[in-house]
């Protein structure tokens, strides 16, 4: 990557439910310095990175994936005409099926991606986790689909209290009684739709592993961490990297079994004095991906190289004991900034200051 590479990154809001885009961008900037130009793609004129100085070189609003592949593609090609994109790194789950549909047109226009295959996306869905876990040879908490309130009685008989009630795509709550189960069923189903999933509660410690798969069954690199601070929504606000060969081996087997293509986050639970359970496979880098970069494993750089058809960086084992605490700071803009986004769909952000980096030296 000797010439200037222009990379579009989505998922750039760092709010209560932080998105991965800023971590991906910082990882690329750390490695590539002035050799990368970052185009932020936002869904809302108040996405925080739009106003964060030094993060984006260009910024555009894009339609939600629910607008459909044609609208999405049209907007991306319009942006491409203005800034010439070399690659897109999507950072949100719901973008993946839409991008999968339009990836060949993007490629024919010179825009590279490195996306998980559609069938693999389905295989790692929460509703198919037991089947995936069986293929991997890893334990998974007993899970039942819940399609209506009546099913909660059966679930309580099977699992006992407490158990975990989950939305199909995200959100989860530990329920401790029948009334709590009904209340959470209504909240989760109103918010995320049906079915919900009921999972046996297992006492243990949760660990997360960020991975990059080459799509052929190899795990290019991975870093495991334990959350040390949580938001109200259970998202990591602080974490520490760890070195547990059993967890990394479990993650490797998941990546190998799925022949995963791209970044992912694998959530594992180590039962107290018991086995490791597979809890979830998220199909993109997590918001904490910069922690892996700080531990010496720059997976966003690896993904970009795969997208561009270049050789992989040689990833060492990540350093254990690297900590992070997310630091929330106010970003500011003017009415003109917001007007440019709302009416024109684009804004020229405050450019990065001249940065020294390994790549630029």
């Amino acid at each position, binding site marked *: 990557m000797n010439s200037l590479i222009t990379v579009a990154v989505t998922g750039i809001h760092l709010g209560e439910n932080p998105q991965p885009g800023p971590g991906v961008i910082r990882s690329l900037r750390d490695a590539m310095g002035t050799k990368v130009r970052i185009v932020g793609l936002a869904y809302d004129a108040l996405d925080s990175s739009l106003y964060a100085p030094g993060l984006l070189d260009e910024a555009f609003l894009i339609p939600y994936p629910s607008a459909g592949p044609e609208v999405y593609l049209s907007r991306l090609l319009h942006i491409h005409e203005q800034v010439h994109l070399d690659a897109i790194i999507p950072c949100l789950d719901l973008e993946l099926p839409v991008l999968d549909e339009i990836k060949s047109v993007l490629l024919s226009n010179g825009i590279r991606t490195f996306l998980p295959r559609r069938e693999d996306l389905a295989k790692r869905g929460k509703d198919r986790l037991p089947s995936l876990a069986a293929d991997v040879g890893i334990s998974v908490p007993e899970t039942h689909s819940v399609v209506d309130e009546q099913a909660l009685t059966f679930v309580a008989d099977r699992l006992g209290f407490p158990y975990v009630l989950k939305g199909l795509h995200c959100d989860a709550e530990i329920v401790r009684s029948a009334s709590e189960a009904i209340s959470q069923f209504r909240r989760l189903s109103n918010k995320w739709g049906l079915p919900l999933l009921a999972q046996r509660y297992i006492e243990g410690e949760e660990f997360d592993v960020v991975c990059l798969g080459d799509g052929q069954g190899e795990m290019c690199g991975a870093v495991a961490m334990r959350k040390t601070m949580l938001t109200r929504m259970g998202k990591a606000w602080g974490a520490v990297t760890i070195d547990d060969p059993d967890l990394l081996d479990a993650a490797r087997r998941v990546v190998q079994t799925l022949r995963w293509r791209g970044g992912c986050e694998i959530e594992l639970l180590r039962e107290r004095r018991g086995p490791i359970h597979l809890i979830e496979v998220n199909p993109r880098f997590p918001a904490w991906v910069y922690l892996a970069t700080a531990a010496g494993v720059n997976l966003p750089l690896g993904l970009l190289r795969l997208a561009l058809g270049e050789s992989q960086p040689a990833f060492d084992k990540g350093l*254990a004991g690297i900590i992070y605490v997310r630091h929330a700071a106010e970003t500011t803009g003017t009415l003109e900034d917001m007007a440019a986004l709302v009416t024109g769909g684009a804004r020229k952000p405050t450019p990065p200051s001249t940065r020294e980096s390994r790549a630029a030296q």
Partner: protein
Amino acid sequence: MDISHLAMLAVSDTGFVFDPRTGHSYSVNTTGLLLLRSLKQGVTVSQFEEELRSSFECPPTIRDDIGSFINSLVHYELLADAYKMSQSL
């Protein structure tokens, strides 16, 4: 006796202890630091007790105190329960 988990611990001179396998951290006082470092090197409880007694003026309960520290290590799963048996604690 298996002290492999204990041997992995990163221990600073100030008594900050980090377990790279779980991400947990602990702090120990100077006596705990001395004992932890000795255990990591494979020193037995009796050897450590003897060393303490020869170097310092120790209370008669010193072996119980060491046992209590070992119990903490077992509680935090840094040592297997069987270790206590092997050391006659």
